[in-house]
């Protein structure tokens, strides 16, 4: 068995764009390149962070990994088995092993379900637990593992009677109740109060260590990513532009986009409050339907050279420490 629990190889997901009558006659087809050749490995028991601004394809990646969307191209390998295409039965097994926590804890639970029913649902679907009592015990245990105690008090409540943090705990309990191997957490704390974020992440980390879980943590928030993850991949416009250990990536960012992201983080430091930051980046993110030629970041890159636009897209290249970066000139940038 390899170190890697999940292997994503050259994943692509294209969405067809609605065509006009003229385009239909000309048989033109346009696609939104939501994911455009993404490869990464996730190690067993690690927390893998996927970072990028909105629209960069990080959530789509998570959904393709969950098989909520089918990939257009590429390969998914779980534990050495190819799981790119799955039949109904295999999908059931796969979804027991891979679970997802959604961004919005307010929307991810049916408002008509009590917490008991929310947690009973995965057990019913996967036919876990022989008797009602057994299932009830599992539900209570799952609630206790996410530190919702006393669990009995929550069972008959509705989601709207809980706080955002409590809901996200219930959502976590729902994924954990099936003992998955991988949990895809899509911005699990972005809609939770700042005050409870750290607590929630700590709980997730505790659970991970207890159960030997692997997380794929999707976020746009560098600060929680550094706090929470072991390795981080930075995505830009459907591609990974930099991948390294969390501390290494943030302390020694190599790609100009990563640098811009780090520079954009707001710091509540006295004296800097009224200081408007100059972010080393230009313009807006281009449309994923019209990817720029060459390096896709070059229109916004302040270090862009003429060859960035003309030469083919740079691939991820490794430095001596295994720090991967997709920039032709990263070495020159360091010297500047």
């Amino acid at each position, binding site marked *: 068995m390899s170190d890697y629990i999940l292997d994503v190889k050259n994943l692509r997901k294209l969405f067809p764009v609605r065509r006009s009558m003229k385009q239909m006659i000309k048989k033109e087809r346009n696609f939104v390149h939501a994911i455009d050749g993404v490869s990464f490995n996730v190690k067993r028991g690690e927390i893998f962070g996927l970072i990028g601004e909105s629209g960069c394809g990080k959530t789509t990646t998570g959904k393709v990994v969950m098989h909520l969307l089918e990939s257009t191209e590429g390969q998914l390998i779980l534990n050495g088995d190819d799981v790119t295409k799955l039949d109904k039965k295999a999908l*059931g097994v796969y979804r027991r092993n891979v679970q997802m926590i959604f961004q919005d804890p307010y929307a991810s*639970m049916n408002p008509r379900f009590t917490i008991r029913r929310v947690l009973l649902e995965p057990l019913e679907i*996967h036919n876990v637990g022989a008797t*009602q009592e057994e299932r009830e015990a599992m539900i209570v245990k799952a609630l206790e593992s996410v530190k919702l105690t006393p669990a009995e008090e929550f069972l008959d409540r509705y989601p709207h009677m809980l706080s955002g943090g409590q809901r996200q705990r219930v959502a976590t309990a*729902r994924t954990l109740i099936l003992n998955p191997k991988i949990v895809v957490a899509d911005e699990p704390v972005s809609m939770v109060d700042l005050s409870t974020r750290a607590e929630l992440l700590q709980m997730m980390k505790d659970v991970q260590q207890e159960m030997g879980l692997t997380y794929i943590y999707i976020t746009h928030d560098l600060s929680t990513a550094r706090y929470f993850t072991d390795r981080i991949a930075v995505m830009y416009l459907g591609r990974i532009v930099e991948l390294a250990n969390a501390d290494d990536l943030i302390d020694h960012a190599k790609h100009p986009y990563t640098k811009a992201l780090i520079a954009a983080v707001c710091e509540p430091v006295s004296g800097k409050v009224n200081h408007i930051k100059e972010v080393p980046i230009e313009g807006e993110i281009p449309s994923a339907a019209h990817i720029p030629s060459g390096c896709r970041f070059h229109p916004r890159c302040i270090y862009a050279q003429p060859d960035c636009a003309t030469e083919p897209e740079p691939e991820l290249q490794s430095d001596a420490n295994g720090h991967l970066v997709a920039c032709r000139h990263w070495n020159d940038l360091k010297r500047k």
Partner: protein
Amino acid sequence: MKTALVKKTSTGTNGKRAKGLFTSFWNEFKRYKYGMVGVVLLLMFILVVILEPLILPFPEAGSRWRDITYWQDNPDNAAPAWTNWFTAKDKTPQQTLKPVNLVEQNEPGLSFVDGEIPYNYQYDDPPTDIAFRAMVQGDVSFIVSLVRPDGTELPLFDTHTASSVPSDFRVSLNSATIDNVFEFVRGYEDPSVTAVYNRRTMNVMNVLFAKAQPGMLYNPEPMKGQYTFKVTSVTIGAGEITDARMEVAGKVFGIMGTDSAKRDIWSGLVCGTKWALLIGITTSLVSVVIGVTYGVVSSFFGGIVDTVMMRIHEVVYNMPLLPIIIVMSAVFKPNLWTMIILMCLFFWTGSVRTVRSMGLQIKEETYIEAARALNASNSRIIFKHMLPQLIPYSFASMALAVPGAILYESTISLLGLGDATIVTWGQILQDASNGSAVLQGLWWWVVPPGILMGLMGMTFAFIGFAMDTILNPKLRTR
């Protein structure tokens, strides 16, 4: 509240929890006054259906609604009896008079029975008719006379009947007593008056209950007091007379009056309740269940399935129901059940569009995606996640479909295509319209069935709205 929840959990079993859920639902429901009004109304309607045999003045009203002989002793177009409370002149109400003081005399081959039928007349407006009725077997003659409060005894009629089996015997005083009454009047009225008010034009009842004085033909003054019908029966050989009585067909009648065919409207309304409930609930339930499922399935699968299902829906939606029902009733015998089935076949389209648009919205919710990530099957998502959301809407549209179905039934009845073996509110209204009840001012024929239809619709609307408020957690105020 909290302790109650904990307790519920510790008891554990499923049945108890369902019971607990119902109790908490009911406790919540009780807080909505309009919901309770709806429940009370519904219970009243159900009570009427259950107690039908007890509150029906004419037990066979339902089955013999169109049998004119069943209603022949009633007055026609009579207002409800309680209208007397609001008028200066009291009209005679419907009454059944029973014989008293029976004296039997037997001689070889003959038997005589003398009886008296007392009638305490205290009204200003005489009855429309009085009928002498009995079940008679054998060779029987009746001699009937009337003793009036002023002491005069007026022979009414003598008649003879023979029947080997017990059969209905009926004599209408209006027609049988003309000659005797006219002779009686002639003793008081001027010949010039009796020339105008002759046998054919005089009103027998006016004379019988008027003071014996000149003018009793054209300006009768009611004589109140104790009247007695003296009845003597002569039976030759073996015979039997049972259930002898006088039926006073008044000018006012019962709780709801009568229609132009002498039918008791109250009986019709009571009999119609069960059919209204049956037609309304069955049609709306079946058609809403079909419509909601159809809409959800269409929205859930989307794409080509959605397109095809929507086109089918549009075709059915635009089909005019009425001509089809007319054709169908030419093919089949008009029958309650074929009518309900036909209505279901067309009514389901009502809720599809709304449900589909709601379904499209729910489909995109994150919790549907979350359920999918848990590997929930399509049917699970449809039946456990989507359909329950539509229950409040379903109840509301059911509530709206109930009066629609009842009204449609009456429309069909209006065209003479209703089920002739039953009586429905719609048919009563249809008869009223045929009998131009509105033009004649027979409001008791038109208003009560209309009010009942409105009440029936209100019942379900109130219940639906209250359930909507409770079952929709976002509107909850817990």
